[in-house]
């Protein structure tokens, strides 16, 4: 199940995306991330290994899966259904499941295999000025693979874009990805180092340095660098944090920033992966972010183009 040297672990190739860069795009979601943000909207992307997902809503209770599991890891009545201690990720159950309630998240793909999935979308890139977007998880965890993918795209005149959490080895990034991407969408989550460590698992010094460096290079090279801030009520969407980010960006001469309003769709994903849900009792995190709060957050970025 582990990817070979020439493979990457990909959990989704999503066509017809209109929100991840210009035009019609196909987004490659790599699996694994060096950060561990508590609110992560793609919790299935965090671990750099395949996982089995169980979606209780879809299950029709037919029991087809129970019999095919060689490890007897599927137990009716068990919270979460899957005994993940026993599961060896053989995926026999996901193949058998008629309702897609059980599914395998993360497939090792070779460049060739991935390209086969992208190629049918090329006419739509051409018509829309779109292309591919590398996202995740964190694409920079798969630098060599991602580099080849970007070069494949560039050789065909396909637009390229990398979305990143910002925590990557700068020199390798500049060698492998930077020359082959038209744009970098760069997440800035929390400006305070302690807060960042508390909520994202690591300090943010390297991330801010990387951003500062890229902002100079991109300006010089005519590439797009778009900082993006996820708005998480009570965590990132605070006056102190947003104002600090705004000051940091102003200092670098940035004029554009994308604010990503919070939505609670990740909570059900957490459960389906057998994970507990943080923030129990934080009611506001179970709701869509109210528009008024989004507007308030925008107010902390005076003079910025907010899209």
């Amino acid at each position, binding site marked *: 199940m582990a990817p070979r040297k020439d493979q990457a672990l990909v959990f989704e190739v*999503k*066509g*017809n995306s*209109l929100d991840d860069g210009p*035009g*019609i795009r196909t987004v490659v979601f790599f699996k694994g991330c060096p950060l561990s943000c508590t609110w992560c909207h793609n919790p299935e992307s965090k671990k750099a290994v395949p996982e089995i997902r169980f979606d209780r809503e879809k299950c*029709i209770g*037919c029991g*087809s899966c129970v019999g095919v599991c060689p490890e007897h890891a599927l137990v009716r009545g068990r919270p979460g259904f899957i005994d993940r201690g026993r599961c060896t990720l053989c995926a026999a159950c996901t193949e058998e499941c*008629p*309702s*897609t309630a059980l599914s395998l998240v993360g497939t090792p793909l070779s460049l060739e295999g991935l390209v086969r999935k992208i190629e*049918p*979308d090329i*006419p*739509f890139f*051409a*018509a*829309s000025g*779109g292309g591919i977007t590398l996202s995740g998880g964190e694409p920079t965890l798969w630098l060599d693979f991602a580099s080849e993918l970007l070069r494949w795209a560039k050789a065909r005149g396909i637009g390229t874009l990398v979305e990143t959490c910002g925590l990557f080895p700068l020199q390798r990034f500049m060698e492998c990805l930077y020359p082959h991407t038209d744009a970098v969408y760069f997440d800035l989550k929390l400006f305070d180092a302690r807060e960042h460590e508390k909520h994202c698992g690591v300090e943010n010094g390297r991330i801010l340095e990387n951003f500062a460096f890229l902002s100079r290079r991109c300006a010089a090279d005519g590439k797009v660098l778009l900082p993006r801030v996820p708005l998480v009520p009570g965590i990132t969407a605070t006056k102190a944090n947003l104002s600090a980010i705004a000051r940091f960006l102003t200092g670098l001469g940035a004029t554009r920033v994308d604010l990503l309003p919070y939505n609670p769709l990740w909570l059900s994903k957490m459960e389906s992966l057998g994970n507990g849900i943080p923030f129990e009792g934080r009611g506001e995190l179970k709701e869509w972010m109210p528009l008024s709060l989004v507007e308030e957050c925008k107010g902390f970025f005076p003079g910025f183009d907010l*899209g």
Partner: protein
Amino acid sequence: MAKIDLANQATHLALKTMALLFSHVPGLRRHLRSDDGWINFSLRLMTENGAVDQVITFRDGRVSVAGGPANADLQIVCRDTAVLKDLATLPPNDVLNLLLKNRMTVRGNLAYAQLFNFFISLVVKNQQIRKMRKQAADLRALSSTGAPSRVPAPRSRAVKNLKAPSRDPGVLFIRDDPYLSRYSLNDFPRLKRFLDIHFTVKPVICHERPLLLTGWFRENGFEQKKDGTPWIPELRQGHAFKHLMENRTPLIRKGDLLAGTTTTSEIGVVLYPDSHGTMIWGELLTAPFRHLFPYDISAESIEVLHHSVFPFWIRRNFRERVRDAHSSPLCQSLDERFAVYFLWKTAALSHTILDYPRLLRLGTSGIIREVREELARDREADEVKKATLEAVILCYEGLAAYAANLSRQARRDAANEGDAARRAELLHLSAICSKVPENPCTTLDEAVNAIWIHWIGVHMENTNAGFSLGRMDQWLQPFFASDLEKISGREEREAYIRHAVELVGCFFMRCTDHLPLIPDIGNYLFGGSSSDQAITLGGVTPEGEDAVNDMTYVFLKVTEMLKIRDPNINARYNREKNSDTYLRRLCEVNVNSTSTPSIHNDTVVMGSLDEFGYPPEHLRDWAATGCVEPTLSGRHIGHTNCMMFNMVAALEMAMFNGRHPLMRWDVGPKTGDIDRGAFPAFEDFYKAFCDQLLFLMDNACEYNRLLGEAHSVLRPTPFISGLIEGCVDKGRDTTRGGALHNSSGTACIGLADVTDSLMAIKKLVYEEKKVTLPEMKRAMETNFAGNPLLHSLVLNKVPLFGSGKAEAVDMANRVTGFVHDRFLEHTNFRGGKYTAGFWSMSNHVAFGTLTGALPSGRLAGRPFTPGLTPEAHASKNLLDNIRDVSMLDHRHMNNNIAFNVKVVPSAKESHEEAVDHVFSYAKAYCDLGGMQMQFNVVSSDTLRDAMARPGEYRDLMVRISGYNAYFVTLNRDLQLELIERAEFGV
């Protein structure tokens, strides 16, 4: 036993009561008499098991009841006594639904069923109306419960406009702003007024046409002349048409720039008792109260229609002519059970496009002159040719007479007009009508009026069902150009362009002045469809050059401002010749209007017609007819909507050894009993499916042929024959194959449902052996009730059409290939071939309600997908849908397709981005070789809100499958189908 006896007794008593009432109450008895004398007929009412069997006889003003069996003009056979009870208590619109659902079948002359319904209605009208009002109220209450809790306020209707990024070479006069972005509806108060009328005025059934025609026929004979010699039908129709045109009321709508109306009302329902007009007989008293598309009708019209019109036509209509002449053939019985096919030819031939350039060039006087020359030239001409050409002349004399009446009326109106500006307009109109259409046109005002006046004539002769206007941007551009060349001042030019927009706007609104007559059963079969007068824009000229011109953009501007369902706007996009600027504008109009125009990939549509070897310059002059179907303008009778054909029925019949489950009729060939081990391999099953298809196709084509003959006898159409190339030379009416090119076009419904079902059987039964064929059959019989595992498997583990899996596309191509090839083997009455189309009007909903559960997992009674649109759950990715549809072999789809895409602009998206995205889909789809595409740019939330608050959404237009309709006027099933369609963000 006693209970059954009781039912028979009760039926006897009920009929006896009716007999007594009609024999003795003068107010009722007078309805037994028509202008031709007593209406005599008998009706037998029975149950399938024969336990109830009664006959009521109306003869010479007396009514009697006796026990059956006996021969009768009409037999009504109820499935059981419960149906019988419903029959007695339901309002007439619901009685028709008993028929639709096959709970009741009718054998014999359907007009008598309608007449009998009318008699019942006379007695219990008040109860019926009360019930209908309650139904309507209940439905409204039901709709409002489906509203979402958090509905965004209705999306701002403020139309935004882009500027054209470049100019097309054919755009000569509006070069600074080809998109005409500076105009909005607010600049045209006249059009705003007309729009308000369109959305608020209730249509009225108009008896003028049938009364004038019936009067003439009664006077001069129909089958024979008064002297006893037979009429040549063409000549009879020519005389009658002239009489009609000379005597119909010349009306000019208040404030209009065009003279003439289709009926005597602001919005009128045209009656064609020679086709399906008597279908409304039973609803005459209740039509104003029905929930869907109520019609008003005056007391006078009820009297006129019942006494003076309908009785004359009881046997003189297309259906009954076939029934009488061919002893109720099987092919007709199948049609009248509604579940396997529906032949539009029972109501209309229409669906064609005339040679309007010829009318504009010659005028009626020039047309008459050329016909006379042909008569003088051809000394060998047979009687039919002479009669046909004489009839053409009579028709065009009639049209000229009508225009002269309009001219006089305009002058009279001017004399009574207080407003000076309007008085000038009326005098201008009077001058126009005194010149055209009799003489050649020289200005845009004249050309548009000439076409409109002719268009009225078209609908006096032909049923208003899908008759189409063709390439109006091409045909009007020379007049626009020559008018403008005479104007030099900048402001004057600007004023003229504004006038041209307003004039075309008036033309659009004129086209809404008439509606087809739809008995309530039709509201379920063809919900919300208007007359579908297609206009086609863009593409290439007959010489193959870029045809986009100033008028193309004028028409698009009007389309965008008015957002009305009819005329149905179609746009040809020729990848080789037309610009991105033009395509982008088509997409912008779709975004702003929510659903029009439909976009055709020009070279692909033309390529689909390759096999007919049409001359290239004829082919390049194609335009859409009715919904989307290609017709070669001015020389082609393609009756492109001759039938709605349910392919899914063949699949059901293959599963049930020739039996149709809803009809409970073992009617198809015995292709194999699944419970006795039939079909060891998938190919065996596939062959059975094909055999059932072929059985239905053979019958549908046979009925179409018989109806074609009925048209030629009952209602030849010399008026339109005068503007269809070939008819005058051959001396043959269009109904007899006079046109240069002839064909018949089918609409084959349920491609996605059939493909997915075949894939489910192939994969799960034969390849993976996860289920047996008998199990699958059982699941169909039980609606998957006892087998959720199988239901889940077919929904999730089968490669579906639209999911991006090549094998499903291969299967779809295999089905379309078979259907196309076999239809092509049939020849119609006019000597033409059949084409295969894959669009559905709204019949995907109607046929769906008459179909059980399918191997695809679609449950009983649910709609099929519209046109050939993939199932909503086939893929979350619109690109999969687009690619799969584009990979269908266009050579199998020579009557075009309808591919629906519902897209929803997100709140944060700019107008420009929304247009860009729609443009990209359309462009890529065409690049990939897709054929036709139509958008609904609206969210399901908005549609749900519209169900709950119809008052705020009267103009919310949606595309059904090939045609547009107002969402709030649709039947509930169709509304829900639209909401459930796959929705993709843009």
